[in-house]
């Protein structure tokens, strides 16, 4: 499997996917993806992963852009496989680190006390405009983290969905693209029913996402959904039942 794929390139705007695995994830076939958006002389890095892959990712990025040109590093949520290398990235670049406001006060634990480096996202999200294009941080709270965002890139029409759409051990992960949604679906089910908080949030997220013209859904783990498969994924996801719906089974304390 090659660990670098150009997802979009129209000479002004480029999106690259890296698939650097740390050992922990490789052992569980979690198939991790990191993303880089470059427009002209600035760049945004998305979910750069744990400390283990920092060096390799830094090197991989350097092949496309001087890391000094990273303007923002976006962390969809606070998990260590997403935000574990905050200290390294804060030293290696002068980028603003973008994360839900909910996690800002924990930054000391990640190795950063300078809140001037952090752009804490309010619950409704935000938009970064560059030229006629924009990046939109779409709320994805409780899917699974309580302070969670997806990122939509208006130029490439890619939705970077974080943990939403993650598939575990799907044979289609090898090519990093879903060719047959029905065959891929069983590998989505276990993760989503256990990690997503409730169907209500799944529906709210799908409703927000449908406001945008999404050509590709790019999750942080597993394969990308293009075109019709992205539509199929949204249709499936709005019916996903999560923790709230399976509460009794999860707690095992139902009435006897």
């Amino acid at each position, binding site marked *: 499997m090659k660990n670098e794929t150009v997802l979009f390139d129209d000479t002004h705007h480029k999106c690259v996917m890296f698939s650097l695995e740390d050992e922990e994830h490789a052992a569980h076939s979690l198939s991790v993806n990191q993303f880089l958006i470059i427009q002209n002389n600035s760049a945004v890095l998305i979910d750069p992963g744990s400390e283990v892959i920092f060096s390799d990712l830094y090197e991989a990025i350097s092949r496309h852009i001087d890391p000094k040109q990273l303007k923002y590093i976006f962390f969809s949520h606070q998990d260590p496989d997403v935000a574990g290398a905050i200290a390294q990235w804060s030293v290696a670049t002068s980028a603003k680190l973008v994360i839900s406001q909910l996690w800002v006060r924990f930054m000391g634990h990640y190795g950063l*006390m300078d*809140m001037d*480096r952090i752009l804490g996202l309010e619950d409704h999200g935000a938009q970064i405009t560059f030229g006629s294009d924009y990046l939109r941080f779409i709320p994805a709270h409780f899917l699974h983290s309580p302070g969670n965002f997806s990122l939509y890139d208006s130029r490439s029409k890619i939705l970077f969905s974080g943990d939403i759409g993650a598939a575990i051990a799907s044979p289609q992960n090898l090519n990093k693209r879903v060719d047959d949604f029905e065959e891929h679906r069983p590998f989505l089910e276990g993760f989503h029913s256990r990690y997503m908080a409730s169907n209500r949030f799944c529906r709210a997220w799908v409703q927000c996402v449908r406001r945008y013209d999404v050509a590709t859904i790019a999750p942080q783990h597993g394969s990308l959904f293009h075109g019709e498969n992205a539509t199929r994924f949204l249709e499936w996801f709005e019916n996903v039942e999560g923790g709230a719906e399976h509460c009794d089974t999860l707690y095992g304390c139902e009435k006897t």
Partner: protein
Amino acid sequence: MADPNVLKQLRANLHSYSLLYVEDNTGLNAQASTLFKKFFDNVVSAYDGEEGLSLFKLHRPQIVITDINMPKMDGLKMSEAIHAIDSDVIIIITTAHDEIEMLHHSIKIGVFEYLIKPLKIDNLIETFTRCSEVFLEAFHRKIFNANLHAVFNYQNNLVFLLHERNVVIANQPCLDFFGVPNIEALRKKFQSFGEVLLEHKSFVYDHGTMKWFEHISAHPGRLFNVKIADQEEVSHHFILTFQSVPEKEGYAVLSLNDVTELGLLKLYDSTATEKEAILKDEKTVRALLEMGMRSGAKIKAHNLYKGLSIANDGLVVTIDERVVTMKVPYVQLKAMQHEEMFYLTSELFPMAILAEGIKRIDFEDQSVTFEHYHLVSTSPTRRESIRVTPDDKIQMSMLYEERKLDTELEIMDVSLGGMRVQVLSLPAGFAVKHSVILDIVLTTMLRPIIINTTAEVFRIDEVNRRFEVVFIFTLHAEGKKSMIDYIAKRQMVLIREFKGIQYEK
């Protein structure tokens, strides 16, 4: 027996509202209606759901109390129909049995309360008290909404509601300031608002690299300085904010807060000599802090702990003569206490403010009070990269003109692109811009890492009879990665060390 004072008060709160009671048992209906009349002037009775619904349409009561099992139309169906007409109506269900099924259904249709028959006066009083609270809240909301208009017009700020980039509504001060008779004229003027914003250094106005609307709408919630001339051609200094309205795409509120009297315009755009005089003036800094206070701007407080940057948002809460009080988080107060000074920056300020003369740090109230402050053109807040004070796991030696420097070098701080060292003596001819070779040795858990790099002498100073030299360098790929790792880990250690201080008394 119920407290007569409570009953009296409840009647005073409720009597002007009306109540519809639906119960097919005629005896019970008559009996309960008599009771309800003690609270409400207007009580209407019905004997089945159908009659209830038609009487509701006729009288429009604010409260409906209904039985469930009744001929023609049951109480739940009737309640659903009533809520479809007016969802604010309070519906109270009465039933002889504690039926869970029924309860679920009632919740679904938004029933306010579920009372078991026979009705008990205590339960009724409790429910009616809650009704009166709901009515009071609705009444207050109504007053608020009705008076919002007045609040909007009589505040000093110029406030516009925009849709895309057009004015939908604006308050009276907008019309007054621009000298236009009505909103229509203001809309026209606003179409060329870019021309209204005057050129001023570091302010927002249309020029080569900036279009005002694109700039402010890309940064909702941020504060901007703008300059606008009034009808007498006198320039006013405003703080502009742009806030998009949540859930209403395309709508936004733009407000302009006039801070002209603080006399800050000249600070942003003046000749060097004038600026020098202003910089020395504490009054100017006080005016900047006051501008921050009035606009509710978040002001960033910065401190350093062994090179570790600690920064958090703060708010200026009071300015009394020369004494300023700011609210800042606990961790920042600890850093201020340690450093006995701090820097303040804001998007509104032309440069950083150095604050000293700390009079009081109140950890309970999370505030700091200080009385000395001045503007500084350079400060650690402008550092591009993270710099840390090293530990003994990093050593360095230097080669200058192929000869190794034999006196000991002490590393004062290190970053990814440079190093500050102190040394007792320097070789002859050693000067700024000269090139040297540095051998940096990092001790790690596994093995020592040697980074060999050429560097440039950036600055030489004399400090306490020692020379202080700043080297700048660009490390090769492997060296860079090792250095990032060293600094990130060192930063973590310093954070832990600082947290230790945080818990000291």
